[in-house]
């Protein structure tokens, strides 16, 4: 099948499905008719898309934790704790990295060793090994919608299993994850894998079942300039739209610079809708999700709480509909369920206290918005141009040409020439722009901002400083 942004034909989709479902025995348990009936039997409050839509309408910010452990019963305990002790609005099932890399035998070993040692030996829930039947126990044990969180370039079987289990949301997209979660997958393959997922969701939608799609947007989570983050998000929503998806969250990681973070959240939907409209799509529901600090966290718990609350506040100031939370254990390891719930609860309280207050937009913030918009549009326009109007092709060529690039990514097919660094005020700029298709205005603005830092601190802004900036927030403040 040749890569393009056309919707997969029924025949082609069917063929691919058969392959996917035979990747592991549990795939055979998926009975599409039955899955549809099951979803339709679930109450509205358990549907991700509906809960998100309602919140967006009310201007409310939903709290969405991450989390997954090796064993089903333990995972149920975790989700109940997040729901009852944390007050989470949306619930997660983070999969383990073996599952993410289709190493189901290793995942099986992880399950067994977890049972033997009495502690979770896996960094997530191996949903595929369990199969839809067992995973449904999780859906039935809680009162909120569940999303599969699986940072993987191989979402096919995982999405089949989790949707069959009754999950109504799926996080991931074909540029973000292949770039930051694997070493050597070609963009083309990653895009196709997520086209599968989007096509699957669109299929379910045709049958009355709303599976909300969410784009991660944080990429490597490492000082991603918002222009790049948004460009990727827009390209991914266009790809999803190509397969028929109409219910989508776009995400973005916080960089902990209030003005820039808020500016990015404020322009995000607008840029998406602009390109969707150009592609003739006028009926996409979009929600904006903000990820609390995705980079190296401070090990000290009091400081970690600060980063978390700050993240909640940025979410509200920026009018995001979802905020994805971190915990005070972040720097060390997978959080205990109590720590995870505490992260949710502290976030929720902050949202409550913020009383839907939005950051007033003065010239500075508006200036940031303008610049982010321009950066994102430069990248997207170039990709579309390189693809002769086809996004999928454009993305592949864009990466080849370095017109799209992702800082600090492990995938060898990202050039990695772009290096982010903070400016004098704290906003994320570019130490090197690599081959990004930026015009004079953007380049000069960027250079002048970096110069401001050099003048202010009398320090050279170089690679060493860029590394320093990555560690800035995790450094003890005392």
């Amino acid at each position, binding site marked *: 099948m040749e890569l393009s942004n056309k919707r997969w034909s029924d025949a082609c989709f069917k063929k691919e499905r058969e392959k996917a479902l035979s990747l592991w025995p549990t795939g055979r348990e998926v009975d599409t008719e039955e899955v549809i009936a099951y979803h339709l039997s679930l109450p509205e409050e358990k549907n991700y898309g509906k809960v998100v839509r309602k919140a967006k309408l009310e201007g409310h910010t939903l709290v969405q934790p991450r989390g997954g452990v090796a064993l089903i019963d333990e995972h149920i305990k975790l989700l109940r704790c997040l729901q009852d002790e944390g007050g989470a609005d949306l619930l997660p099932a983070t999969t*383990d*990295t*073996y599952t*993410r*890399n289709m*190493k189901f035998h*290793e995942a099986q*070993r*992880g399950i067994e*060793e977890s049972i033997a040692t009495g*502690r*979770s*030996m*896996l*960094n997530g829930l191996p949903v595929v090994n369990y199969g839809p039947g067992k995973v449904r126990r999780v859906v039935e044990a809680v009162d909120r919608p569940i999303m599969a969180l699986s*940072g993987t370039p191989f979402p096919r079987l995982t999405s089949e299993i989790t949707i069959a289990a009754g999950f109504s949301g799926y996080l991931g997209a074909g540029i973000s994850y292949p770039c*930051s*979660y*694997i*070493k*050597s997958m070609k963009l083309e393959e990653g895009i196709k894998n997520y086209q599968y997922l989007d096509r699957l969701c669109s299929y379910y939608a045709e049958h009355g079942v709303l599976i909300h799609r969410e784009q991660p947007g944080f990429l*490597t989570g*490492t000082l991603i300039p918002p222009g790049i983050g948004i460009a990727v998000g827009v390209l991914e929503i266009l790809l999803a739209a190509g397969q028929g998806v109409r219910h989508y969250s776009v995400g973005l990681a916080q960089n902990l610079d209030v003005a820039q973070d808020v500016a990015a959240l404020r322009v995000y939907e607008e840029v998406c809708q602009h390109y969707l409209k150009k592609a003739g799509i006028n009926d996409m529901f979009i929600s904006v999700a903000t990820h609390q600090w995705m*980079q*190296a966290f401070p*090990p000290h718990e009091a400081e970690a709480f600060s980063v978390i609350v700050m993240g909640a506040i940025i979410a509200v100031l920026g009018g995001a509909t979802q905020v994805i939370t971190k915990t005070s*254990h972040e*720097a*060390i*390891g*997978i*959080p*205990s369920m109590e*720590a995870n719930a505490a992260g949710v609860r502290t976030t929720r309280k902050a949202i409550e206290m913020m009383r839907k207050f939005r950051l007033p937009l003065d010239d500075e913030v508006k200036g940031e918005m303008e610049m982010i918009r321009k950066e994102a549009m430069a990248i997207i326009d170039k990709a579309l141009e390189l693809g002769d109007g086809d996004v999928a092709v454009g993305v592949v060529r864009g990466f080849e040409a370095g017109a799209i690039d992702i800082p*600090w*990514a*492990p995938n060898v097919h990202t050039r990695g020439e772009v290096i982010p660094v903070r400016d004098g005020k704290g906003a994320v700029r570019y130490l090197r722009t690599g081959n990004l298709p930026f015009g004079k205005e953007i380049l000069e603005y960027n250079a002048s901002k970096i110069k401001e830092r050099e003048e202010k601190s009398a320090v050279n802004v170089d690679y060493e400083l860029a*590394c320093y900036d*990555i560690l800035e927030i*995790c450094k003890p403040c005392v």
Partner: protein
Amino acid sequence: MQKTVILGVVGVDAHVVGNKIIAQALRDAGFNVVNIGTFVSQEDFINASIETNADAIMIGSLCGHGELDCQGFKEKCIEAGKGNIHLVVGGNLVVGKQEWGSVHDRFLKMGFNRVYPPGVAIKTVISDLKKDLGIACED
């Protein structure tokens, strides 16, 4: 004589930021760094160390699967005739927040010579490495 170290992240682990930063720091400290990046299998580590006649293997493991991914590594080194190579491991080695003493012990028992906790200072790693490989320290 310049010492050669193999650096990589074991298993299906994509955390590359620390890897890149440590590689640079080791180079700045005068080591010959063979950085094989992320998603490295036990076999890849050993092969690289044989090919380059390395003095040390430095394994990063961030994602939490370190315990599973490092099982039997020392034994494989011995089998491959590299039983004496200096073995260093660091990162977020286990799943969750566990008492460090016991984690440290577990990895020592597995045959590692140095085991570092999350967020260790890179300069500590380097000065230990110099000591362990018999390189004079300036400080």
